[in-house]
């Protein structure tokens, strides 16, 4: 069964920081939940450049900026948009069921 993915509850929509990025954890894994202009998106929380927690970064509804080196990612697609960030964010498939954000991991 190892490696088999299932939908798991991550956080209730009501707990989200509106228009911002909210940290969440499942076991030891850290996630960043973005309340973007295009809807909810979820990624692994760590910057692909320097491993800082993106949940502490500046988010404008579309782009998330790393709090350590100000690398930039598109939170809707995960694409790295500005140096020093080069590698895209690892985005997690998500859905909302009965007010609960679920991730497919």
């Amino acid at each position, binding site marked *: 069964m190892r490696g088999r993915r299932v939908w798991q509850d991550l956080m209730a929509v009501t707990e989200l920081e509106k228009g911002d990025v909210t940290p969440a954890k499942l076991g030891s894994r850290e996630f960043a939940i973005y309340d973007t202009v295009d809807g909810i998106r979820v990624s692994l929380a760590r910057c692909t450049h320097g*491993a800082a927690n993106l949940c502490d970064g500046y988010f404008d509804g579309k782009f998330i900026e790393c*709090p350590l080196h*100000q690398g930039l990612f598109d939170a809707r697609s995960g694409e790295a948009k500005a140096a020093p960030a080069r590698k895209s964010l690892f985005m997690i498939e998500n859905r909302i069921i009965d007010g609960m954000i679920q991730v497919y991991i």
Partner: protein
Amino acid sequence: MGNQLRRESQHNQPVLTPITQAMQDGALSRRELKQLMTRSNLPGLIHLFGFALTLICTGSLIWLASGTWWMVPAMFVHGIVWVHHFALQHECVHYTAFRTRWLNEVIGNYCGFAILLPNRFFRYEHCDHHTYTQLHGKDPELIELPISLRKYLWTISSIPYWKQKFIEIFAHARGRFSPIEEKFVPKEDRRSLVIEARVMLALFGAIVTFCIGTNWWGPLFYWWLPLFLGEPVMRIIRMTEHVGRPHIRDMKENTRTNLVSWPMRFLAWNMNYHAEHHYASSVPFHALPKLHRKLEGFVHIERRGYLGAHIDILSQICTRSKKPL
């Protein structure tokens, strides 16, 4: 996908950033932090206008003194202002001078050109300075505590600084990077840094050629001589940020905030609040005084300002030189 997720989770070992540390310490809440991070173009544009106006005023002093020996002090005063292009460039490197990202790029590149510090290269170098602040062999901007008064004055003279900068730019233009630079400059982006160094050298070459061809030496008297005359002041200021502070990771200890007068804060784009800046480098310059009030007690503050920091540095040099070998 599951295996990939596991690999990604393991590959990216978490880094405890100062900003996360500050929230864990209870120094400030996430909401306060987010508020402080809010970007705006207006404060930066107003500040830029004031900075440009100051440069015009000090430049006018040179013009008024032209043909007399008063030109030397006038160029020095203009140079003190000119070298503070660094403070603006530093703010642009963090994308915190303006809300609009491309404005930070454009103004950052202009500042880099004004003080011979290629912007893209500086961004990479500065990243590692923030990751490894004050750590030997890892912080590329680390300035060692001078071992003697002679070395202290040598550092302030800016001769070692300029020597390093000229070596750097010519090496980069030839596609060469030092082992320490190879650690922070990604392979994929080295080409762009080579081009950046070549473009900067070509532009300087073109200006020098133009000056020789037309026998018009404006850039020499309003730009290059003031830059070299003023740089020791920037060395004095840059030394106050970390020199003499412990070589440890703890942001509460390894960085110094200096309380200075309003004109110096203005020129430095509030970078005298240096410990606060290291705590949360995403906080724009105009919000640093507010962050300073929030972090009171959490960071090292030198209340006597730049002078006090140098008294501290000099006393450490004297204490060290009196120690028996």
